[in-house]
Each structure stands twice: as structure tokens, then as C-alpha cells.
């Protein structure tokens, strides 16, 4: 393949397809960014850009699994500098399918990882010092070499150099890429060893390509001398597959663990929340319990006091009951005594009444007796006058009728004299009786004045009885 830097546009078969590719937008974005300084591609929507777009798009339709991958555009561009679209497409398909590039551009980009692993091992084997330096600087192979493999040095070196490498690549395959990579590292080894990661990165960007470009022939010769053992590479591939599988498993495990961790964290948070709530409740419960205990204590104390009071009250109640009993007894007694005293009073009143009655009777009797006395006096006078008359009569009669009449008169005189004697006797008796009654009355009056209530029972003779007795005596 000619290593022309600026070939004229080809007038060959054009690839034109009406079918839309899902990658079209992405492809379109990268078109202007592929060889932006190259004459053929720098014109916006020019033939170069169109051809680039057509080939890339055609490939994305041809190989749906790969579709479009950034980096492939530079390879297509390099081809388009040499041949028309259709041919470039055919060569691209071949490069993809027969030169490991398809695997390089697949979405997993597994082949790139493998190439990095293989190159790292080659460096470790052939440039151990440099490898150690890389390790110490944490400088990963992919940091400098991924674009070498993805674009087959088209983005790292000048077009003539890239074209030369592409020629060898087409005849020998990926091996030359490893060899050129090793040659580049060998070239820059001394300087790289003195740089830190930052310095090395800059060196890979600028100085190293310039140094390689300064003598392309030397670089290629150096590359050819690099050791490349296909068997060893196969072995490394197997190792890588094992590592990758393990890594993937670990990744899956990690993902699972992350998920689990997330769930556990969530649960932990929830539990913490719950714990907080429970602790809160516990504290509240304890506080309320303490309060309740306090209340209980107070209540207990009150209860004790109440019990004590109750006992006292009971005691007092018993006493009071007893008192009541005694009082009621006393009351009963009082009642009885009162009743008896009332009875007594009543009795005395009765007696008094009786006595008054008796007094009345006695007075009445006295009046009657005096009246009779007066009557008797009158009767006595009357009798005396009759005696006088009768004596007169007797005298007369004695004179007139001395015999018969004298005897008769004498008889009559004896009878009158008897009757007179009787009357005198009863008068005497009555007088005595009146005196006695007067005395008795006086005595009674005196007694009544001194002891109006407690008058003797001895004088309580019913008046009626007395009266009765006297009446009997007088008749």
C-alpha cells in the first residue's frame, strides 16, 4: 500500500444505502473529527467526509453486533486514502473479521483488554525495568497503548508511518502491532524510566512519536527484532480468559453484594429508626412508670393514713356505739324515771286534787255544820221558848186542872227534858267535832305551805268518807 500523505479523491464505486443505521448520529459526530487536518477529510460534508460516513455506516449495517466503534473511523480513513468506498468497505470487512479487529470493536471490547494483558506481559518479559517503573507509577498499559491497538497507530504516528505499519499488519496481523509497541517502548525506555506518570503520559503524547518518526526505518527494524512467541501469546490469552471470567464473576458477586449491602443498609436504617422509636418509647415508659410508682407510693401512703384513720374511726365508732348504747340505756332509764316521776307528779297532783277536794268538802261541811249549829241554836231557842210556854201552861194547868193534867204534863215534861238532854249532848259532840275539824284544817294549811308537794299521805283521807262519817254521826 502506498504511503502517500495526501492522495487525490478516488472516482470509483460509491457506497450508497437508503437503509438507516441506528449508529448514524454517532457516526456523523465523529466524521469531522477523523483526520480533521487532512486535506481529503477536512472539508465539511466534502467527498472525503461523505465517503468516510458511507463506509462506516455500511459496516455498521453489515455487522450489527459491532455497529460503530470509535477508532474504526481512522482505519477506514486510511483505507479511503488508498481506494474507493466499495473497496475500502471490502478491506474493512476483511480486517474486522480476519485480523482480530472485530473483537477489538465489539461492545465489550474484550480483545482490547486481552491485547493490553498480552502487551503488559511482553513488557514485563522483555523490558522488566520499565515494567517495574510502570508498576511503581501505577501506570497502566491501557493508558498509552489502547489507541495503538484500536487505530493501528493511525492516531499515534504520522500517516506514512501508519501506512507502513498497516501494510505489515495486513500481511502479518496483530503481531506487528505488538512488535511496534515494544519497539516504541524500547526507544523511549531510558527517558520513561526517569519520568513520573504525568511525565510519561506527556512523553507518549509528544516526544515518543516524534522520536519514532525521526527514523521510521530504525523503528521498523527495531520492531522486527522484538520477540513475539505465538504460543506464549496463546497461553496468555487463556490466562486472560480465566482472569476475565473470574473478574466477571467477581463483578457479578460485587454487584450482588452491593445490592445486598444497599438492602441491608436500608434495613439497618429502618431498624435504627425502629430502635430509636423503641428507645424513645422505653424512656417514655420508664418515665411514666416512675411517675406511676411515685403516684403509687403516694397512694400507698394515703392508703396507710386512711387505714390508720379507719382503725381509729372504727375504734371511735365502737366507743361511740358503746356510748350510744349507754346513752340509750341512760335515756331509757331517764325515760323510765321521768315516767315514774311524771307518774309521781300525776299521783301527787291527784292527791293534791283529792286534798283540795277534801278541803272543799270540809269547808262545805263546816258551813253545813255551822248552819246546823245555827239551826240547832234556833231550835234550842225555840225549844226553850216552848219549855217556857209549856211551864207557863203547866202553871196554868196546875191551877186549872191540877190532877189529871198535872200527871200528864209531868210525863210530857220528863220527855222534853230527855230530848233536851239528848240535844245538848249532840250539840256538845258537834262542838267538839267542829273544834277538831278547825284544828285539823289549820294543821293542814300549815302543812301545805311547808310541803306543798310532799304532803303526808296520812291526811289524805277522802273527804267523802269523812263527810259520810259525820253525816252518820249527826243523824
Amino acid at each position, binding site marked *: 500500500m502506498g504511503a502517500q500523505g495526501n492522495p487525490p479523491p478516488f472516482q470509483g464505486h460509491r457506497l450508497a444505502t437508503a437503509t438507516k443505521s441506528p449508529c448514524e448520529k*454517532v457516526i456523523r*459526530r*465523529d466524521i*469531522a*473529527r*477523523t*483526520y*480533521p*487536518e487532512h486535506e481529503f477529510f*477536512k472539508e465539511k460534508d466534502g467527498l472525503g467526509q461523505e465517503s468516510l460516513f458511507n463506509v462506516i455506516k455500511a459496516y455498521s449495517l453489515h455487522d450489527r453486533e459491532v455497529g460503530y*466503534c*470509535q*477508532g474504526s*473511523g*481512522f482505519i477506514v480513513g486510511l483505507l479511503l486514502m488508498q481506494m474507493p468506498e466499495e473497496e475500502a468497505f471490502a478491506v474493512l470487512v476483511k480486517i474486522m473479521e480476519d485480523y482480530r479487529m472485530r473483537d477489538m470493536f*465489539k*461492545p*465489550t*471490547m474484550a480483545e*482490547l*483488554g486481552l491485547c493490553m494483558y498480552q502487551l503488559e506481559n511482553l513488557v514485563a518479559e522483555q523490558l522488566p525495568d520499565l515494567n517495574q517503573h510502570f508498576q*511503581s507509577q*501505577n501506570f*497502566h498499559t*491501557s*493508558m498509552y497503548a*489502547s*489507541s495503538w491497538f*484500536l*487505530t493501528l497507530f493511525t*492516531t499515534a504516528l504520522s500517516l506514512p508511518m501508519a501506512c507502513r505499519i498497516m501494510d505489515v499488519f495486513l500481511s502479518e496481523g496483530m503481531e506487528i502491532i505488538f512488535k511496534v509497541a515494544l519497539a516504541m517502548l524500547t526507544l523511549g525506555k531510558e527517558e520513561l524510566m526517569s519520568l*513520573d506518570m*504525568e511525565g510519561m*503520559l*506527556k512523553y507518549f*503524547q509528544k516526544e515518543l512519536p516524534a522520536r519514532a518518526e525521526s527514523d521510521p526505518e530504525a523503528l521498523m527494524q527495531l520492531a522486527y527484532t522484538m520477540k513475539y512467541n505465538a504460543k506464549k501469546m496463546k497461553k496468555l490469552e487463556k490466562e486472560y480468559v480465566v482472569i476475565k471470567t473470574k473478574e466477571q464473576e467477581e463483578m457479578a458477586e460485587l454487584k450482588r453484594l452491593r445490592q445486598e449491602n444497599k438492602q441491608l443498609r436500608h434495613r439497618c436504617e429502618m431498624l435504627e429508626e425502629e430502635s430509636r422509636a423503641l428507645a424513645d418509647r422505653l424512656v417514655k415508659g420508664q418515665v411514666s412508670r416512675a411517675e406511676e410508682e411515685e403516684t403509687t407510693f403516694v397512694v400507698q401512703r394515703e392508703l396507710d393514713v386512711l387505714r390508720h384513720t379507719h382503725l381509729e374511726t372504727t375504734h371511735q365508732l365502737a366507743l361511740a356505739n358503746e356510748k350510744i348504747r349507754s346513752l340509750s340505756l341512760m335515756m331509757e332509764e331517764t325515760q323510765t324515771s321521768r315516767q315514774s316521776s311524771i307518774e309521781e307528779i300525776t299521783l301527787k297532783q291527784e292527791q293534791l286534787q283529792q286534798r283540795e277536794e277534801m278541803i272543799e268538802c270540809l269547808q262545805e261541811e263546816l258551813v253545813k255544820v255551822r248552819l246546823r249549829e245555827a239551826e240547832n241554836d234556833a231550835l234550842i231557842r225555840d225549844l226553850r221558848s216552848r219549855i217556857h210556854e209549856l211551864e207557863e201552861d203547866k202553871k196554868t194547868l196546875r191551877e186549872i186542872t191540877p190532877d189529871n193534867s198535872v200527871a200528864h204534863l209531868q210525863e210530857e215534861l220528863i220527855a222534853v227534858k230527855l230530848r233536851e238532854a239528848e240535844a245538848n249532848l249532840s250539840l256538845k259532840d258537834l262542838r267538839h267535832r267542829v273544834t277538831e275539824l278547825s284544828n285539823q284544817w289549820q294543821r293542814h294549811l300549815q302543812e301545805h305551805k311547808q310541803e306543798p308537794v310532799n304532803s303526808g299521805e296520812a291526811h289524805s283521807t277522802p273527804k267523802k268518807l269523812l263527810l259520810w262519817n259525820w253525816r252518820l254521826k249527826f243523824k
Partner: protein
Amino acid sequence: MASRKKTLLKVIILGDSSVGKTSLMNQYVNRKFTNQYKATIGADFLTKELTVDDRTVTMQIWDTAGQERFQSLGVAFYRGADCCVLVFDVTAPNTFKSLDSWRDEFLIQASPREPENFPFVLLGNKVDLEPRAISSKRAQQWCQSKNNIPYFETSAKEGLNVEQAFMAIAKNALAQQNSTVDLYNEFPDQIKLTNTQKPSGGSGCCQ
């Protein structure tokens, strides 16, 4: 070489292809823009010295290939990063939709100690172009949903906001490094940071 007085901040730029990762990096480091950048294959890298809070630090900026399948190659680049810069094209909705995937993939491969606290900075690039497909509000909402990621709208072409964005990136990276010094024991030339002030995260951003 054993004890250089130098603080190295490792920053990774991620985002779909052609959102402007290489252009942003070059605008920041070299203050120039060209339409003639090649598509980044594998990873590219630039360094810049800058002063953050009176400290001179070297920012090591890793530019990566934007195609999804290149994510699997990230491990070597991502590990030991102090800050991850996510970039999308404000005129291309798909590049915004991919952000979650980039962020998740980064966290898986870089496995930082505290994934939830790892500093990200989001750049909405190409604000010089029309029409806008992703509003600032939408981008900011996304940032808020991701533990308040600082957000900058930039134009690598016109150099708009690029300096400020990278200053915020540097501060976040420095804060991250101060909080996880142990992570750098694997780098022999790293110095221990003992008496450094922790800059306030996200200051100077346009949120």
C-alpha cells in the same frame, strides 16, 4: 522525586461523544479552541498548575472516549480520581439523558470510599449554540437530585465560564482529597495533607 511539595488533583471528564470534553480541557489548559480535534480514542490527558486558596496544585485532567463501550476501559483512568466532571451538550437531549449512566458507571468502576459524597461537577457545554434542548432549570434539578452537584453552563468555543467551572472542580477535588487522604497511599509521590483548609464546596458555581 521522593518528596515533591506538590498536590496532584486527578480529574476525570466524562460524557457522551462530541459533547466537548476535549475542547473544554484544551480551552482550560491551553486557552484555545479548534474544530480540528480528533475523536479521543482511549484516553487523553493534560495537566495544569493553578492556585487554589493560596495553594499551588497540579490538576491532572483525563479526557476519555465518549462512546459507551469505552466505559469498560475506564477502570485504569477512573481509579484515584478526586473529582468527576460530567459534560453534556445543551443542544443534544440524549447527551443529558446519558448522565445517569456515566455517573453510575464511574462510581462502580472508581469505587470511591463514599460514593454518595464523591464530588461531581456538571457542565452544560455548547451554550453558544442554538437551539437549546436542555434548560438550566432541568439541569439544576438533576444536580439537586444527585446530592447538589455544582452546575456550570459553558462554551468551550468561546471560553465562557470554563475558568470558573474548573476552579470549582479544583476546589471540590481538593476537598475530596483532604477528606480521603488514605486513598492516595497507593501513589508513592503523594504528600500527606495535614494543615489544609477545606474550601467550601460548590462555591463560585452558578447555581
